[in-house]
């Protein structure tokens, strides 16, 4: 079975090539880090896999199903979910509601039941609240249930993003820079969280800048440069490759 296969994906914006004939396969149950200098196409590949941009050519296959032309929400239902670099929390909603809105369970998400079957809806709401609260507990935000997302610390906001993506019950999770901007303590918590997700059987694709973090979490590394996938291999293979090292560090990138 092919778990995730991206084949010959090309994407241009105007005259700019964001992705140039990228092909790779991801095996289930592993953590793959997407690395490369700024503008390498890391976020673009995320957008193609999750359907947020349409590739000019190429296909995306998930669990033997061609998802290339599937809508974004249908991909989430199939089990591909993502976080955003700029978080995109529902700032005015409580932490609990942020998670509740993302639960895979569609019950209670229509107007008719809400208006005409109030007792049923109330039961659904109660069930969903419990489910969301359990997820917040899992990421260590059990004590912040009623707090509006806007008042959480940056580290807590990032954990809330993880709880939201867990709520979708997706098995392939794409994390866009989950550790950026975190202080040491929050950073360790996030790394532990990522390992926990793997232990729970999730497959992870992670955009990560920090090579030390890559060493700590990655089973595989995908190295992108100028829209091309230059190399795919174990963290050791990639870091010992001098050519890639020159591209990554020689450009005066932040690490």
């Amino acid at each position: 079975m092919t778990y995730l296969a991206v084949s010959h994906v090309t994407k241009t914006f105007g005259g700019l090539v964001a992705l140039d004939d990228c092909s790779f396969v991801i095996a289930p149950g592993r953590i793959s880090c997407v690395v490369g200098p700024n503008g390498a196409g890391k976020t673009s590949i995320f957008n193609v896999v999750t359907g947020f941009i349409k590739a000019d050519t190429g296909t995306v296959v998930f669990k033997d199903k061609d998802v290339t032309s599937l809508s974004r929400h249908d991909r989430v239902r199939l089990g591909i979910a993502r976080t955003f670099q700029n978080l995109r929390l529902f700032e005015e909603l409580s932490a609990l509601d942020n998670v509740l809105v993302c639960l895979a369970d569609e019950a209670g998400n229509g107007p008719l039941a809400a208006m005409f079957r109030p007792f049923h809806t109330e039961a659904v709401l109660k069930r969903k609240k419990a489910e969301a609260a359990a997820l917040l507990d899992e990421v260590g935000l059990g004590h912040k249930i009623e707090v509006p997302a806007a008042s959480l610390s940056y580290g807590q906001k990032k954990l809330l993003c993880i709880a939201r993506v867990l709520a979708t019950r997706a098995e392939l999770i794409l994390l866009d820079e989950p550790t950026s901007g975190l202080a040491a303590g929050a950073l360790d918590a996030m790394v532990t969280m990522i390992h926990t997700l793997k232990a729970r059987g999730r497959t992870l694709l992670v955009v990560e800048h920090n090579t030390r973090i890559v060493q700590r979490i990655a089973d595989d590394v995908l190295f992108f440069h100028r829209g091309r996938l230059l190399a795919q291999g174990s963290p050791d293979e990639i870091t010992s490759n001098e050519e890639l090292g020159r591209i990554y560090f020689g450009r005066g990138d932040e690490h």
Partner: protein
Amino acid sequence: MNFFLSFVILAEIFSIAALSTNLLMGIIGIFSVAQAAIMGIGAYTVALLMMSGVPFFVALLAAIVLCAAVNVISSLPSLRLAGDYFIITSFGTQLVATAVFINWQGLTGGASGLFDIPLATIGGWTFATARQFVLLSTLCLVAVAGSFWLLMRSPYGRLLHAIRQDEIAAVAAGRRVLRAKVGVAAVSGAYAGIAGGLYATYISFIDPTSFDIHVSVLVVTMLVVGGARTLSGSIIGPFLLIAVPQLLAMIDLPSTLLGPMRQLVYGLILIAFMVWRPQGIAGRRL
């Protein structure tokens, strides 16, 4: 007493219209200055059906269904497209609806409107006097307000708030955003249909000016004054603003200036609230 009761009835009818606008502008964030047009479609539907012998209850149901459909269709471009397009769609819907009310004379009676709309009767009860009608309008407002409260409390209501704040994040969570928006537009249209049906049977006379752009702006003013997003705001606003004409009646004005003067006051109130209190009396910041 009758004077006071008719004030209450009108305020209740406009509370229902304000809740309709609240769902679009406050909750999901779709700009709307066309709710009077939708209300007008409800009013004309109820009036025409009742004048051809259809019972009030059936006519009102038909108006609810029709208004829900029209509201969905008229907001459909806005549901699919971001940007300032829906400002035009909304103004356009209002102006086109008014043109239809005026020009489709065979059906709507043109500029002179429809007279002698039959009284509302349900199962032998006739709502003729203000004292009787206030029961009906209160009942309807309670039903609409109750459904609004239930909607907001449900998972669906939380989803609507989420969509307003970050539509892309809602999509990324696997939510069918378009379906959710169509749903809220339909409910909003249904509310407007109820308001229109009540208005037609209470006043027993409707014409195009009863549902023109000024009325839509008035409903927006009511919403903004009371405060968007909350249930109480949509009830406080209409009760305050329906009182304005009564207060103006105490000043001695030539009758030709009464209308413009009332509009002027509404406009000033609108600006004042936007500058000094955009959250209204009991709402959230728009």
